[in-house]
């Protein structure tokens, strides 16, 4: 399980747009680097990120090796209703991780 930092602003009014921020610990090994033994370190990156609100995809990203280590994403979301946000990361080596957060409407 990789460490994640998910920020969902609270206290938004209906119709307000908030910025969701997600950070995940992952080296995003590009596959272009040589290790200490001189051999190429194989690629190991996160490939996909998906954000769902009550199961419906609201934002997704396809990531390539040019995304920095410990990938950071920030995207807006209009707060129409309260619900459950699900954040999923998938990547090389069968990497799969899901975090959830509550979206509240004040």
């Amino acid at each position, binding site marked *: 399980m990789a*460490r994640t930092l998910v920020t969902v602003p609270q206290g938004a009014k209906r119709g307000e747009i908030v910025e969701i*921020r997600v950070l*995940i*610990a992952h*080296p995003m090994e590009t596959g272009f680097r040589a290790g200490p033994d001189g051999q190429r370190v194989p690629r190991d990156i996160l490939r996909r990120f998906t954000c769902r609100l009550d199961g419906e995809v609201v934002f997704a990203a396809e990531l390539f090796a040019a995304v920095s280590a410990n990938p*950071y994403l920030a995207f807006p979301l209009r707060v129409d209703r309260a619900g459950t946000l699900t954040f999923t990361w998938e990547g090389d080596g069968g990497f799969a991780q899901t975090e959830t957060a509550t979206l509240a409407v004040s």
Partner: protein
Amino acid sequence: MTRLAAARACAMAALVLAGAAAGTAPAGAQSPTSTRAAADARRSGFDDMSPQTQAMQRDDTQNPAMLFVADGEALWRRPAGGEGKSCAACHAEATTSMRGVAARYPAFDAPLARPVNLGERVNLCRTRQQRAEAWRAESPDLLALEAYVALQSRGQAITPPNDDRLTPFRARGAQRYRQRIGQLDLACAQCHDDHAGNRLGGSTIPQGHPTGYPIYRLEWQGLGSLQRRLRGCYTGVRAEAPPYGAIELVELELYLASRAAGMTVESPAVRP
């Protein structure tokens, strides 16, 4: 006298003031700059960064180091070693017990009869109190716990201890700071005093104050300690870097802390 030489004089004065005031400052007081702030020509590496990188550090929801701080907080509560005790078992909540601690390291360790940095102190606690194995230098667990402890000093002034036992070590550190080394035959002072603010390649040369360690360094794509940074400089001037834990490195850390006395702790910082 260069501006930074004047600033060093201010720093030594601030050190004396900080030592004198340590007993009288009200609990929870935050005095981010020295009383001579108006005349203080010292700049943190933060000030030399682009606005984008500064924003990365300023916001805990964006700072990659906070991922490792979260790991550190979990480690704080995890039982370890033959005693099965966590840090919390003795130190309770770090937000209280560790407040101000990182700001006064390196500090003297009586049994070893020499100064130790924060990471070494953590390992001494592990071996002496928890009866656990010491963590390897720069290991993820050690850095994470260091980052969590250092965070508890954020916003406070770097406050080197007023401890006479540290004097000979600090003096050697000061001497080493001015010692030319390596194939490039450079001393720390030449870049970080004489040429601070100028450029080396595309990068601005910082004054080299340890205001934010452990740092998330973009060049490393990860978290690292001051010793890692110092060893990087040794390599940079084509000198052989002392091994992790070498007394030479701790003496330098001790000198750098006194040189930065009164500056604000930013840990865990982001640096290019």
